[in-house]
């Protein structure tokens, strides 16, 4: 067989796949592939002086935590701050990862809106953010005591989301 049959064969392959796919029901909902997965390994420096940084090892001490992806430049994060404060009052331990931020901005933000975090890591290149499958700021993950992701909350936390997150946190503790 000569090379000039190859384009036709490739095209036939495409036709087959396309015809098959056209007849499949379309489902645009993509569930998070990270649920049930362990946290990717990372070790972030502190986002400002006087606060510890964050590493994936910190999550393997048996205690479930919230991992909050945020930034001082992010307006929805400001809207979310009171809810984080309430979660903290309800006993949730919240670890922050600041995305593409600067220490002075982080400090100003925490001064203004309060600091619900026990640790804050600086993710200057969004590496951790991308590795755990977060595409925007803010996002909040529930991590169980073995460092496994059990829940992903996309967008800012509104008042009505707080009970659900507490529930997820309790489930992760079992």
């Amino acid at each position, binding site marked *: 067989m000569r090379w*000039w049959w190859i*384009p036709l064969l490739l095209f036939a392959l495409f036709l087959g796949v396309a015809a098959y796919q*056209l007849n499949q029901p379309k489902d645009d909902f993509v569930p998070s592939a990270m649920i049930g997965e362990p946290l990717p390994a990372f070790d972030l420096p502190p986002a400002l002086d006087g606060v510890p940084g964050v590493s994936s090892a910190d999550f393997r001490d048996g205690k479930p935590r919230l991992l909050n992806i945020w930034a001082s430049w*992010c*307006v929805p994060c*400001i809207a979310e701050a009171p809810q984080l404060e309430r979660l903290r009052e309800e006993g949730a331990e919240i670890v922050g990862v600041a995305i593409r931020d600067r220490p002075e901005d982080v400090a100003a933000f925490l001064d203004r809106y309060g600091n619900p975090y026990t640790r804050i890591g600086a993710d200057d290149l969004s590496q951790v953010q991308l590795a755990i499958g977060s595409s925007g700021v803010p996002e909040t993950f529930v991590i169980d005591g073995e460092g496994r992701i059990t829940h992903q909350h996309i967008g800012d936390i509104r008042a009505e989301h707080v009970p659900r997150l507490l529930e997820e946190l309790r489930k992760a503790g079992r």
Partner: protein
Amino acid sequence: MIAGLGLAALWLAAALAALQLYAGAMAQRDGGGAAAALVRPAAVVQGLACAFAFVMLLWLFAVTDLSVKLVATNSHSAKPLIYKLTGAWGNHEGSMLLWVAVMALSGSLIALVERRLPERTMLATLAAQAFVGLGFYAFLIFSSNPFERLPQPPAEGLGLNPLLQDIGLALHPPTLYFGYVGLSVAFSFAVGALLTRQVTPEFARVMRPWVLGAWVFLTLGITAGSYWAYYELGWGGWWFWDPVENASLMPWLAATALLHSASVLAARDALRAWTIMLGVVAFSMSMLGTFLVRSGILTSVHAFAVDPQRGAFILVLLALYIGGALALFALRAGSVSEGQRFAATSREGALVFNNVMLSAILAIVLLGTLYPLLTEAFDVRVSVGPPYFNPVGAIFAVPMLLVMAVGPLLRWRRDSIARIQRPVVLIGVILLAAAAAALAIGGVDLLPLLGLALSAALALASLMPLRRRRLHRVPLSVWGMVVAHFGLAVAVFGMASETAFSDERLAAVAPGETVRVGPWSVTLAEVLPNAGPNWTAIEGHLVASYRDGDPVALDPQSRSFWAPVQETTESALATRWNGQLYAVVGTAGDVGAVTEGDVRRWQLRLWWKPFVTFIWYGGILVALGSALALVGRVAADVKRRTVRARAAERRAEVIE
């Protein structure tokens, strides 16, 4: 009434296409006769009828005739007139009608003026064109009728997608369609030449203006589309490797390869089978792109008019045309003799090398675009993006740019590197110097570094074919090549510079505060409401100054349209010769602003993008270069023809 006229004209055009196909096919068998005489007139009238149908559609949109379903679902009486008109092709049915109308008109043009090829080949070409047209007519009439009426006209139309209410839309899709149509003509010529076994240099010369024309429009279309996405989507990016963008890039890559291989065939009678295959592939990529966009088979930010039923229809057309043409190619390619031979170190050698590189890049883009489709068949969801396309594409783009710098300096048939040693060394020195300069600035990744170095070398190299020549005697087609190659260097420089040196700043800013980004300091003066004919907006008033120079006002908006309801961000740009400041205010998610006490803070996103505009200047230069080449080639053809006609006249006089 108007809708009825339009539909009748569409049916008439379809009937004429059927006649054109039948007569063209009959003429192949009995070698002419009565049938042959019908083909050209049928093509001319078909074009006019189809153009008439499109004008009727424009009219319906201009007067907002809501009894027509397409108008009711895509237009609104409160829209400015210009967007009523552009709305005629800002939807699935209307854009298909525009495509078919342009295709039919180019058929008319060929039928009227093209007489260089053997008549049998021309009739086969026109028959092939009618065959393609017939499928599109069937598609329009049976599955996407733009003139469909509603039994009960609604009181008001649903409006046009606000993202599309922009002058960019008036230019972008039609230019791309003109490009696709040019490739469909090249396809028909390829099929005609294969059917009648006339793969000759003359065939390449006849096909070349159509490929050049298609290339001008595709280049402009992609350039305009990229700029449109850049300022309209508010993400600050100019290329996303989205399936729909790839759908426009693939025909361009194929057309670029086709253009260069057609030049080899025209000048040296080599690469016969390869040119034919590219002719088929280029149009196939246009059809494939249409299929991907319209069927909704891939998830894309652009997906519009998504309908699996229509997808199935287009897939059948694809199977018929591409499958048919590739089968014909497979059967006939063996009988197309190989053509002239040439040495590896020669103009042809360089062109062949770059043809292979272009085809490889095309294959990579095609694979990346279709890969999610393939894995979904096995229930695995993937998304293929820049981490695949950029480095893998670069593997082939880098050697291509290098050869592109040297190729035009080589002679046809056989040459030696030793002869062009000095310019090659000079190009190499510039390459290394630019790379060293980029390294000295620091913080530049490998790919942008390569881009910066290659663009400098290519910019210099592209001008070299002009050296030691009298500029006013250089043929227009050579000027075209020089300008187009230089334009590519400019565009590559813009891409590399934007990637390497962009500065991004995100901030929650209260009025009166100042933010620094790159050499700019930007102050948010105030945020005020604003309103247009069919939207309301909050508008940020920014005062920016470059290195503490004169203040420049920027007014980015966050708009809310009410028909249909949708939020858009209108970015504001401050353009300098050395780059652009890009500002976006407001909505990220639902919360675009937050109030604390009596201070209100707004989400502000700023980018300083050094030399980003060079991407589009380069695109325009490339298109200008190909336009020059097109004019040069057509003018030369006309001149040759008149000279020949005069010589024939003189001979006739002498005999008398």
